[in-house]
Structures are given as structure tokens and as C-alpha cells.
């Protein structure tokens, strides 16, 4: 265990804030605000269903900017791969989240929070595959 890196309090607070955010969207317009879905559906505009997505995403960047400025530990960013690796990973993440209909927030937070078997199954699958991918990357290829 990496006890130096372990930060359970800020993690729980951050997770709760993310849930407040998705809960607020559910309260306002009844949408399940998985972030990959918010992004993807802002790309195929429909009347009355686009503006909220765009301002939500802009709000996220603003929330990040303010937090990075006032809370120093949050601004840490240590990349796990180079820019080419980020492009490959981004393609997988974008394609996979749309084909599977969700990401860590849609399947993970909202899906499990609503007792959705799709959400639970999706989360178990992407977690397991990501764990294997990290194992191969760190202990087979680099090891």
C-alpha cells in the first residue's frame, strides 16, 4: 500500500461534490449527467438539449481552474504516458464510452447509485480491463 499517496478525506469530499453536481442536473432537467454523455451529446446538437451541456462543461473547466489555483495538491498532474500515448488513449476512451454508453461517472457513479445492472457490469468490465492494461504497461512492457 502507498500510504503517502493515500488521501481518503479529500477523495470522499470530491466524490460527494461530483454527486451533488450530477444530482443537481437530475433535479433541474431529469438527465443522468455522465460526463462522456454530456460531451458526446453536445456534439450532435438538438434543440433545447445542447446549451445546458455546453455551459456544464465550461463550468467544469472553471471549477478546475479555481481549485488548481487555490488548493495546491489538486494542481498536480503527472502524466502516465507521452502525448502520442494520450492521443491513442483518448481515441479508446472516446470510442469505448460511446459504444458502451458511459464512463466512470455515468456507469460508475450514476449507474451504481441507481442500482443499474448495466452500470454495475460496465464498471466491473472497465475496471478489470484497466487493471490488466496497467499491469501490462508497468510490469510486462516496462518491467
Amino acid at each position, binding site marked *: *500500500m*502507498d500510504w503517502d*499517496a493515500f488521501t*481518503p478525506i*479529500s*477523495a*470522499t*469530499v*470530491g*466524490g460527494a461534490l461530483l454527486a451533488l*453536481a450530477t444530482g443537481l442536473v437530475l*433535479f*433541474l*432537467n*431529469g*438527465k443522468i449527467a455522465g*460526463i462522456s454523455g454530456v*460531451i*458526446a451529446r453536445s456534439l450532435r446538437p438538438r434543440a*433545447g438539449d445542447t446549451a*445546458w451541456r455546453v*455551459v*456544464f*462543461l465550461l*463550468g467544469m473547466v*472553471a*471549477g*478546475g481552474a479555481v*481549485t488548481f489555483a487555490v488548493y495546491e*495538491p*489538486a*494542481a498536480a498532474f503527472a502524466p*502516465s504516458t507521452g*502525448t502520442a*500515448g*494520450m492521443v491513442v488513449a*483518448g*481515441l*479508446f*476512451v*472516446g*470510442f469505448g464510452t*460511446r*459504444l*458502451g454508453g458511459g*464512463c466512470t*461517472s455515468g456507469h460508475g457513479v450514476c449507474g*451504481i447509485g441507481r*442500482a443499474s*445492472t*448495466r452500470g454495475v*457490469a460496465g464498471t466491473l468490465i*472497465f*475496471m*478489470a480491463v*484497466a*487493471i*490488466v492494461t496497467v*499491469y501490462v*504497461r508497468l510490469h510486462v512492457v516496462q518491467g
Partner: protein
Amino acid sequence: MKGLIGFVLAGFLAGVGLSVSGMTNPAKVTGFLDFAGNWDPTLLFVMGGAVAVFAVLNVLIHRRSAPYLCGTLPGVRGATGIDRRLVLGAALFGVGWGLAGVCPGPAVTDLALLRTDVLAFVGAMVGGMLLAQRGFGADAPPAPVEVDVA
């Protein structure tokens, strides 16, 4: 559209939450996924806190007959059907998440860092989403039910 300020606030809360939680740092995510290395269980607490709070809010909000502004509530229980698209899509997402330690919410939030590698990730992610939507019919409205008249 009325009420847009509420969605700005929701996005802002999401951005604050993700950055406070540590998920905007790829090393933190990789540390959680690396069971064979120096494991950092932090992300379990992000997920646990988020699921617990959202589960309560979901039940409370569904006591209303309709959302506050517009639309309809989706039902207190989430979808149940597991199909090939879900399995394959989640697996491909897992490959990307494991490669970079970045998923969609933290990627958007990390745009505030003005890093070219984050911008490259987000650009590629949008490309992957468009490919899934335009080339593979993801997010398409449900197909009309075919009636067998024979």
C-alpha cells in the same frame, strides 16, 4: 433557456469535486489501478462518496413528479439490459483509461491546466466519440420495432 446558471453551477461543482478528489492527476489513477505495485486505494473513496451521495439524491429527487425546470425524471432504477455493445465499449474504455489514467470528466477539468497533452487527449476523445456515433450508431434513437406479419 431559463435556468442555465444552474447547469453552470453543476459543472463548476463537478470540476471542483474531480480536482479535489485527485482524479485529475493521472498518476493517482494509475496508482489505484496498479494492484501489483504500490497500491493507492484513494479512488475507492471517490467512488464510494459519490455513489453514496448520488444514491440518496436520486431517491429524494424521484419523490417529485417532474424535474424543477423541464423534461421528465428517468425513474429511480437505472437500465438493466447487458448487451455486446456495453461489454465491448466498456472494455475499450478500460484499455484507454489504463493507458493514460485519464477518463472523460477529469480530462475536461484538466483543460484548465492548459497542457498540450491534455488537449491532445480531449481532441482524440472527441474524435473517438464522433466515430462511434457516426460510424457505429452509438447514441442513435432506438430502432423502430419490427413487426413480423408473416
